[in-house]
């Protein structure tokens, strides 16, 4: 079973009156034309140009899109000089997950988060674990839900007792308008919204979004511009800028580094990355080093050896990062949160499950020092 099937099939919650079937590649029904148009909304961030062209201002790619053409992300297109998103309300997967699965370890631990995604991405990581969502266009993946309004989504989250809403799996930047409206609705219902992102977004839309987002997890793929260009077809600097922006706005931030053997696991590079984090974001930003599994276009690279992740974790600790973790290695000690001050166990985890918590009002139960995070 691949990751997408796992995501979709493993224990769906009957939020909308049925269990979550798998989203399918387009082999079957086609939505009626009027239904497809129901997902269409004018994009929030673009400018009009001569000759009915538009420039997208949502992500640093800044696509210049001719009439009837589609942006790089595949979910936005120009129709006679107006730029539209085609994924508003078009969630193709909705699922209730432990928040630890995002991973967010310092944000409302052991709670469920209602997680959703549309298709599309403004990167093309050759190792994408969710490529069957991220690398397809809206008309190519038929979700089971039809139009899911922000209000309905938030009501569903409340109904199942989720403590947050997560924009995840695919890249939420590309469904910005939908994400923003859900986050606004959620905030009105005292439900925090979290964003799991590559961080490749322009400053203005990000600033506007951070007003309604409670936590962000950014994929820090490598501290290497070349890596971003070659393996992700993106750029590093805008991602660094986004991380700084999140910290400046005092929104909770965690980072994930998917460690791929031979590509981004050099100790020196890891050390540089960790030093940049400590220096620019501070030592309290948690960093997760997660295990790579061969997929999509990177199938000739082996899984990350546990020893490599252990080494990454040690480099992070030695570089001054207070809360470093390993991921996709169930049972490893580095899944647990230890108090940076007294070294005692604060949150004990097995996989995504929290088995013990020793926090009181966001403070260490043992030494009473505050622990960075959002603890509820």
């Amino acid at each position, binding site marked *: 079973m691949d990751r997408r099937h796992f995501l979709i099939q493993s224990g769906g919650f009957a939020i909308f009156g049925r269990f979550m079937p798998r989203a399918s*590649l*387009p082999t*079957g029904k086609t939505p009626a034309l009027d239904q497809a148009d129901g997902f269409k909304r004018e994009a929030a961030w673009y400018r009009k140009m001569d000759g009915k062209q538009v420039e997208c201002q949502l992500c640093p790619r800044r696509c210049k899109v001719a009439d009837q*053409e589609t942006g790089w992300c*595949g979910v936005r297109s120009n129709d006679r000089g107006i730029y539209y998103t085609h994924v508003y309300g078009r969630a193709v997967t909705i699922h209730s997950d432990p928040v630890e699965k995002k991973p967010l370890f310092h944000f409302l631990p052991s709670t469920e988060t209602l997680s959703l995604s549309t298709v599309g991405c403004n990167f093309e990581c050759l190792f994408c674990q969710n490529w069957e969502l991220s690398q397809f266009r809206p*008309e190519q993946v038929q979700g089971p839900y039809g139009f899911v309004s922000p209000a309905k989504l938030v009501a569903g989250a409340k109904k199942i007792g989720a403590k947050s809403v997560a924009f995840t799996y695919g890249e939420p930047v590309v469904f910005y308008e939908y994400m923003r409206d859900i986050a606004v609705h959620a905030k009105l219902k005292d439900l925090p919204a979290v964003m799991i992102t590559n961080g490749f977004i322009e400053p203005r839309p990000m600033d506007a979004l951070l007003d309604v987002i409670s936590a962000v997890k950014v994929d820090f793929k490598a501290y290497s511009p070349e890596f971003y260009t070659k393996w992700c077809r993106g750029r590093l600097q805008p991602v660094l800028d986004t991380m700084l922006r999140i910290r400046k706005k005092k929104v909770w931030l965690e980072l994930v580094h998917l460690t791929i053997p031979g590509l981004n696991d050099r100790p020196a590079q890891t050390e540089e990355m960790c030093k940049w984090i400590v220096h620019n974001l501070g030592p309290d930003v948690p960093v997760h080093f997660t295990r790579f599994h061969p997929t999509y276009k990177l199938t000739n690279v082996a899984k990350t050896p546990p020893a490599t992740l252990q080494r990454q974790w040690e480099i992070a600790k030695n570089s001054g990062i207070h809360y470093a973790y390993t991921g996709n290695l169930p049972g490893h000690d580095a899944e647990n949160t230890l108090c940076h001050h007294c070294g005692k166990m604060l949150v004990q985890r097995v996989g995504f499950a929290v088995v013990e918590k020793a926090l009181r009002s966001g403070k260490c139960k043992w030494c009473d020092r505050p622990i960075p995070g959002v603890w509820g």
Partner: protein
Amino acid sequence: MDRRDFIKKMGAGIMVGTGAAGESLSDTMIVNRDRMKTRPKARVAVLRDEKVRAKTGLSADRIHALLERAILAATGYKDIKIAMRSLAGPKDIVGIKLNCLAGRPLSPTKELTQAMTRLFSECNVSEGNLIFFERSQRDLIKGGFEVNVSGPGARFLGHDSPGCGYEPRPRISGQVGSCLSRIVTEKITVLINLGVLKDHNLSGISAGMKNLFGIIHNPNKYHDNNCDPYVADVSAFDVVRAKLRLVVIDALLAQCEGGPAYRPQYAWPFNGVLVSTDSVAVDRVGLQIIEAQRKKKGLHSLKAMKRHPQWLETASRLGLGECNHENIQIIEEA
């Protein structure tokens, strides 16, 4: 060396074809006889008929005759049945990739698809063995066609039609990694590329090869660098090389600027079709027609606009066809 000197020095320049309808394409007709001895030229038929436009609309009969003459010219046969059989036999399933992105005014004309259906039928490829296809049913409808998934006659399918879709895993060709249309990989045995001659704001032109972006699931990822080398890489997929037999470019109405959408102010009735078995050569000739019209309209060249389709040279290097106009024989009369 300028062109005049070049022709003198080669000492073998001949100008062929004055064209029954409008400007000549003879600039491309410099023949190097020494080369001809060792290497056959790519044949591109550029046939026109100003009478295709009747008062009541396009003349289906004249378009049929035009396509027939163009296929004969492109294949070099004198008998249309033999020419068509060289493309497909009775057991073949023939897929014809349309380009309907610009909507009805600048999609392949219905009359041309009907002419193609008739020509194949006359050489024993039944209508039921013909599949006209596009990226989506929506695109087909935009282009003025009716979706026909299982009814009588030729089928008109989108990749989102029942039983179609894309392969589950990506294939790699050069810098392109994409899931390919299952219509192309599984349903058909012969591929015909039926594009439209028009300007494209990124790739320079959209005629034949660019139209094949519609057989991959992620064309939006391959518009950087004026689509070079991506357009070439898509045509270089093994399955495309193996199945593609003919390129037909609908230039009854062509467009020299503002593409890929329809811009009436830049469209003009070329009243012709371009046909070739050489994907690169036919696009190369299409480029010249577009450039000539741009010049006539007082527009800068695509090169000056930094939109020259460099992917043509790339495609030629990949062995997909002939890009050098000296090695292209344009046939304007048949």
